[in-house]
């Protein structure tokens, strides 16, 4: 009897999980469906059966050229993530293994910068970029993306590092390991799942970032967010083309997320149950 109840619960839980997953995924699914409609079909209201035309894709490619924007997105997402990890690993190490009096406050302060609306600092940042010649440059935007995601990266790594027993590092020190060796040969291998999931999450965040990537670029450094933005039209139907552009823009990151979902989930729930 107890077994029957458990099966029933399991079925309900599975069904609930599917419904929630479908609800969360539905906007993306509908974007993909809309991209295979004509402009007239797209604006006619809710319809899950597209005519299957590829017209929007060919127009989108002919109009703006996808590949240049795609390469910029890859460069910015990967580059900013590597930069962020280079800064965040030592920072998180020091906060986790040799905390000071102000460590908690510093962590909170770092996180609080994420609460500030980005537009509040648009002008100062724009002026700095203008004066340093970084407007519309990949390097400038890479640094910007690294900076805005840094608090999250430091926090995540700090949480993972805290799970690693300090005694192991002490043992390494007893064996004569230098600080550098301790981080590279002892800490990093143990924190690989955490670092990997932080890296994946940061790539996703950088890929999707649409405020700075649109406002600090024009032609050379513009990534896929700018590509999508170019298909909204003040006068003329554009839903199908916009959906095709969005599908092309999210496809790479969706595929990456699909293949790395185990690592992502593992990393995100790391330390949740002790």
């Amino acid at each position, binding site marked *: 009897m107890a077994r029957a109840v458990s099966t029933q619960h399991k079925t309900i839980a599975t069904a609930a999980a599917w419904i929630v997953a479908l609800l969360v995924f539905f906007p993306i699914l509908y974007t993909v469906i809309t991209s295979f409609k004509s402009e007239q079909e797209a*604006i006619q209201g809710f319809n899950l059966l597209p005519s299957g035309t590829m017209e929007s894709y060919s127009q989108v490619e002919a109009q703006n050229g996808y590949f240049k924007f795609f390469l910029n997105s890859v460069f910015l997402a990967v580059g900013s993530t590597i930069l962020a990890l280079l800064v965040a690993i030592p920072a998180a190490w020091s906060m986790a293994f040799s905390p000071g009096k102000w460590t908690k406050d510093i962590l909170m302060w770092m996180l609080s910068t994420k609460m500030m609306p980005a537009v509040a600092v648009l002008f100062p940042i724009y002026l700095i970029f203008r004066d340093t010649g970084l407007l519309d440059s990949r390097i400038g935007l890479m640094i910007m993306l690294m900076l805005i995601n840094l608090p999250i990266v430091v926090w995540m790594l700090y949480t993972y590092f805290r799970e690693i027993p300090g005694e192991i590092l002490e043992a390494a020190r007893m064996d004569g390991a230098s600080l550098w060796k301790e981080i590279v040969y002892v800490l990093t291998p143990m924190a690989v799942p955490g670092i990997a999931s932080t890296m994946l999450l940061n790539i996703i965040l950088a890929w999707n970032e649409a405020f700075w990537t649109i406002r600090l670029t024009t032609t050379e450094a513009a990534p896929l967010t700018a590509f999508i933005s*170019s298909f909204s*039209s*003040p006068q003329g139907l554009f839903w199908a083309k916009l959906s095709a552009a969005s599908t092309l823009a999210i496809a790479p990151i969706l595929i990456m997320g699909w293949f790395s979902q185990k690592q992502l989930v593992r990393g995100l729930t790391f330390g949740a149950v002790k």
Partner: protein
Amino acid sequence: MKLCTLTLGLLSASILAFAAHAESITIATVNNGDMVRMQKLTDDFTAKNPDIQLQWVTLEENVLRERVTTDIATKGGQYDVMTIGTYEVPIWAKQSWLLPLDKLGDDYDVKDIIPAIAGGLSVDGTLYAAPFYGESSFVMYRKDLMEKAGLTMPDAPTWDFIKQAADKMTDRANGVNGVCLRGKAGWGENMAFLTAMSNSFGARWFDENWKPQFDQPEWKNTLQFYVDLMKANGPEGASSNGFNENLALFQQGKCGMWIDATVAASFVSDPKNSTVADKVGYALAPDNGLGKRGNWLWAWSLAIPAGTQKADSAQKFVSWATSKAYAELVASKEGWANVPPGTRSSLYANPEYQKAAPFAKMTLDSINAADPTHPTVKPVPYVGVQFVAIPEFQGLGTTVGQLFSAALAGQTSVDDALKQAQDAATATMTEGGYIQ
């Protein structure tokens, strides 16, 4: 072998020298049919100007507005040519953010630009932006439904006639709404329509002392008429409909009348996308017998920011893109019906264009009927027909638009919406120093 190497070397050097010499200009623009077409036709420009390369940045309208404002205010120099509207030109020109267009070439023929449009893009007689396409608004109606209703649309209808026709044409059982009008909130959406409409009711945003006028009977008459008309004859969910939504409804045969931008005429009469292409008639925007019609004036225009280092090349491009020769180029490649409308008088005098665009005369008459310097019946301290050319208007216009959209949706009463609009406008104008 040596000769071959030498030749190759010289060739490379000359290519490099050419590349170094070629100047690249960046053009910021919005995504609409005419602009996309221009991007396809730029080979003509680069063939005539081999030393200038063109780079395009296409952005969503509001993002574009924000991006170019940031760049121009900080003199960032990211753009050499920017697409802006009649709202921005007078404000930016007064702040010396735009270069005067005084080197458009001898054969440019500035006087050919339609006077109402040129006036909206000039400050103290100097042209600061060249119109790429211009528009007013007018009535598009279904000739078959009008006939069925036993009515004849006059060339210059009144609002009472529009109401009478809408009442008769509405057949909700068959999915026909008598009239489709903008309801989506935004200074460039419902407020463009409602401000233009209010002019024909004798309303104004501000009196000569910048005091908001939403507490006056003219505004009450405007908004009450609009809400009643739409409740009785408008489509479901009209408070979410902007230009594109109404365009789709009209093309699908779901609207008896649609009062909107003249540029829509080329969409609704296009048999590829419109099911009612051969049944559309056109009339001037309605009036109330007060001497002003409810039509607006807008032009997407090309301007050159003061921060550019490439002013001469930029002027060459602006001159090419807004010239008579460009109209002929479009006509030769894609037909006269696809020539950007509403900028040059010569286009409307062209018999081939008149033949290809049955709405040509009505478009020109509508544009000529708008006067940005005297938009409404009573005197006003501002310029602009469907907007008020002050920096505060974007925010205020959208706030008021949200209130009026809520009144249309039935979330608030007309009186409440007007009272809140009056309060919001008073606060904004006091804060801005207009009211002491």
